[in-house]
């Protein structure tokens, strides 16, 4: 565990030391936190590309992966989403919006007692399928639901 890292981060935030390190290239921002930001997956412009980016080659739909979303979004700028996995040993969850310019919205790895579930708010530019992917024991499971968007959320 990283109490030390956290202490460093906190004191650095106050003193600006860390910013100096980042500027000097000694410490890239993403390295402060654990895993790398998955550029290939987040930059992918379509669903297959994003799924490939996260390593989910073969997936299977699962009713044990619950995706709660409105049928119609009140406002595409803020679409509430809950994902809950009851698949044993779920270690990670991804949320993707098929028709967004970059479909991958977020990924979460769970450890140390965190239940494999998350709630978040998404931007949706248009009516689209929203997909949740869960990883358990090395296998990928999916659930999806269409959300109708009448007021788009990407144009500001």
């Amino acid at each position: 565990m990283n109490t030390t890292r956290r202490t460093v981060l906190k004191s650095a935030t106050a003193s600006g030391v860390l910013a100096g390190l980042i500027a000097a290239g000694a410490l890239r921002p993403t390295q402060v936190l654990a895993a790398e930001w998955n550029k290939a997956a987040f930059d992918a412009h379509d669903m297959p590309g994003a799924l490939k980016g996260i390593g989910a080659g073969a997936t299977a739909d699962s009713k044990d992966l619950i995706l709660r979303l409105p049928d119609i979004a009140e406002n595409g700028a803020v679409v509430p989403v809950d994902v809950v996995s009851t698949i044993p040993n779920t270690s990670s969850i991804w949320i993707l919006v098929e028709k967004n310019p970059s479909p991958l919205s977020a990924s979460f790895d769970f450890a140390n007692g965190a239940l494999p579930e998350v709630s978040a708010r998404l931007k949706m530019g248009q009516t689209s399928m929203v997909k949740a992917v869960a990883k358990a024991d090395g296998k990928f499971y999916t659930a999806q639901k269409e959300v109708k968007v009448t007021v788009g959320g990407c144009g500001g």
Partner: protein
Amino acid sequence: MADPMKIRAQLKGDVAEVRVLMAHPMETGQRKDAAGNTVPPHFIQSMTVDVGGKKVVDGHVGTSVSRNPVFGFKVKGAKVGDKVVVSWVDNKGDKRTDEGAVA
């Protein structure tokens, strides 16, 4: 400097419901300002949640998470008084760490 987060962690049974509000523009890089100029992307990329000194969530985020993001998590085995620490870093290297406690 980034504005503080708001962290709430409520114990229900032995599960702590952690909710985090983050102040961040989450610019997609596609929006145009009033003058018609494209606003460059500016968004949180990574976040971690620690409860009781252990990292429980390691998250990564793209541009399609809403402005001023809201996240909710559940952590089993937490106790009242456990410290909750949330950190984020964005694509420009701006960052923020805030603390709360399980209530």
